[in-house]
């Protein structure tokens, strides 16, 4: 049984605004093992991006606050590190890529500059060596004519190429973990597939772990090894992708999977989950999903259920997980 690369325990992140406290992430725990892809899945606003940002402590601290929890990376608790120590982890051992490559790259510097920056910082190479390495990385992410493109500005590249450049930038120092926050959402469907394939390839080559944040179940089934489903800031189901997709044990996961229109079936209506995502400042009592749940009972309103072990490696936060099929 290998040790996990990243262990998140009871991570809780709140945002203090004048209208109230937004409990964006509440008591979330999961592990990522070396060399695997864990997908963090859920609708907009469920807290998955905040989880990713919390791991690297990139949450803006005035309104935001990591209230409690532990984030063990190779045994060290990241939440206890000083900012200086954290700077050595970022871009070096853990990297992150973001959803919108146009706004996530600095428009006044060339992509070469931005890639070399990280290399020079973490690997102490001089400019020539760093440049060579940057060109290598661009080549690795399949950008044609890398020796020319390295001097391009972000606005001169297409969306897909910009995302590849961002991947090159994130991977330039060979991190052990890559956090990818909806990396393909802003791209065309065909480009999406290419970028995902690329990610998978490089991940296997480098033996890197990936935490892939997405709302697209298609992406999860395509590249995920394990998946964690989030709802209203909480983890509701967690386990291997195969298992979750075929033997899900939480009504929300079931609802998500069933709402995907199937080509083979003929239907008159889409299977939407009734109701709406709750207002994060006004969450329901007990189980956060119960108002919309077809399996709800009186119990569900009283207390928030803990994570039940369905079988080894598969957990569900539903009182009636046994009846959920």
């Amino acid at each position, binding site marked *: 049984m290998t040790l996990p690369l990243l262990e998140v325990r009871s991570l809780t992140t709140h945002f203090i605004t004048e209208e109230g406290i937004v409990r964006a992430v509440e008591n979330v725990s999961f592990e990522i093992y070396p060399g695997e892809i864990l997908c963090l899945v859920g609708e907009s606003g469920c807290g998955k991006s905040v989880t990713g940002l919390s791991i690297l402590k990139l949450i803006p601290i005035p309104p935001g606050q990591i209230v409690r929890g532990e984030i063990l990376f190779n045994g060290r608790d990241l939440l206890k590190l000083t900012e200086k120590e954290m700077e050595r982890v970022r871009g070096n051992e853990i990297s992150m890529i973001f959803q919108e490559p146009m*706004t*996530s790259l600095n428009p006044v510097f060339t992509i070469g500059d931005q890639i070399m920056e990280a290399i020079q910082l973490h690997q102490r190479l001089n400019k020539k060596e760093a440049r060579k390495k940057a060109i290598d990385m661009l080549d690795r992410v399949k950008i044609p004519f890398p020796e020319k493109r390295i001097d391009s500005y972000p606005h001169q590249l297409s969306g897909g190429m910009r995302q590849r450049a961002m991947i090159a930038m994130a991977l330039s120092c060979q991190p052990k973990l890559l956090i990818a926050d909806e990396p393909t959402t802003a791209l065309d469907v065909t480009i999406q597939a290419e970028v995902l394939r690329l990610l998978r390839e490089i991940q296997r080559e480098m033996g890197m772990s990936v935490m892939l944040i997405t709302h697209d179940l298609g992406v999860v089934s395509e590249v995920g090894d394990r998946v964690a489903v989030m709802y209203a800031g909480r983890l509701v189901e967690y386990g291997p992708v195969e298992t979750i997709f075929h033997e899900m044990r939480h009504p929300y996961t079931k609802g998500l999977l069933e709402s995907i229109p199937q080509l083979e079936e003929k239907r008159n209506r889409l299977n939407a989950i009734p109701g709406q995502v709750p207002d994060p400042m006004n969450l329901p009592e007990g189980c956060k999903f119960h108002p919309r749940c077809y399996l709800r009972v009186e119990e569900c309103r009283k207390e928030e259920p803990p994570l039940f072990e369905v079988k080894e490696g598969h957990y569900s936060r539903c009182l009636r997980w046994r009846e959920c099929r």
Partner: protein
Amino acid sequence: MTRFLFKRLLQLFMTLIGISILSWIIITQAPGSPIALTMDPKVSPKIIEQMEKNYDLDKPIYQQYFLWLKKLFTGKLYSFKDGRPVLEKIGERIWNTLLLNLVATLIIFSLAIPLGVFSARRPYSFLDNLGTFGAYLGLSIPGFWLAYLVILATVKLFGYPVLGLRSFVIEGLSPPEIVLDRIWHLMLPASIMAIHGIAGLSRYTRSSMLEVIRQEYIRTAKSKGLPEEVVYYKHALRNALLPIITLFGFLIPGLIGGSIIMESVFAWPGIGRLAYQAVLARDYPVVMTILTISAVLTLIGNFIADLLYGVADPRIRYQ
């Protein structure tokens, strides 16, 4: 880039024409203008003769405009006060004003930008709020009043001479002392002129920085593990300074206008003072010429600023 340049040049040209027309209309057609004066029986024939010489009042209106324009460029416009060519009078003094404005601009940029950047780093902190209040104060204070207070203080408390380009008594002083004297006479008016500009530019810099810090690429920079100083002074600042380049063009008309008052207070022999004296003496050719030249200089200043912006922002430089 060339398309950008060409478009701007065209706009420049049209604006130039607009400026000259407006200048001409304001001075010659407004009530109290020279033309009205020619109707006044009390005005001496000598002045009327000068007017007609300058303004070709015997010719039809549109010709008057073009003839004026031509005279302006060929230096054939003559001052009412002493009959000398206007351009010559301006030429004598313009360097003094330019010097004053240049120093004031340097002071403004070198103080305001660091102030703004520093304030933005810890927004709403005590120092930032202090800086904000100071900026408001600087924007609200009447320049000539501040100048008088400073003069009052300097003379009463220190007994230093402050007016003019240099002290009257300079024989017997060694060259370095003379240079120092000149610098002293320059710094005081330039600094007071700069107050308003420092206040405004520091606020602008601050808000530009705050805007940039909110952008996503700043978060990306942080995620790479770059230290806070690098993220702030390299990634953020470079973007925040871009719009400030365009402000460069706007600073110039403000300084020329401010010159009028400051040059009067400090008896500085520049075109501001010349302009004021010309207004007092109803010396229309001089007034018109200074007005037009100022407007043209501003236009050119803005144009250069736009050009610089086009070069500095890679999104425009490489279309």
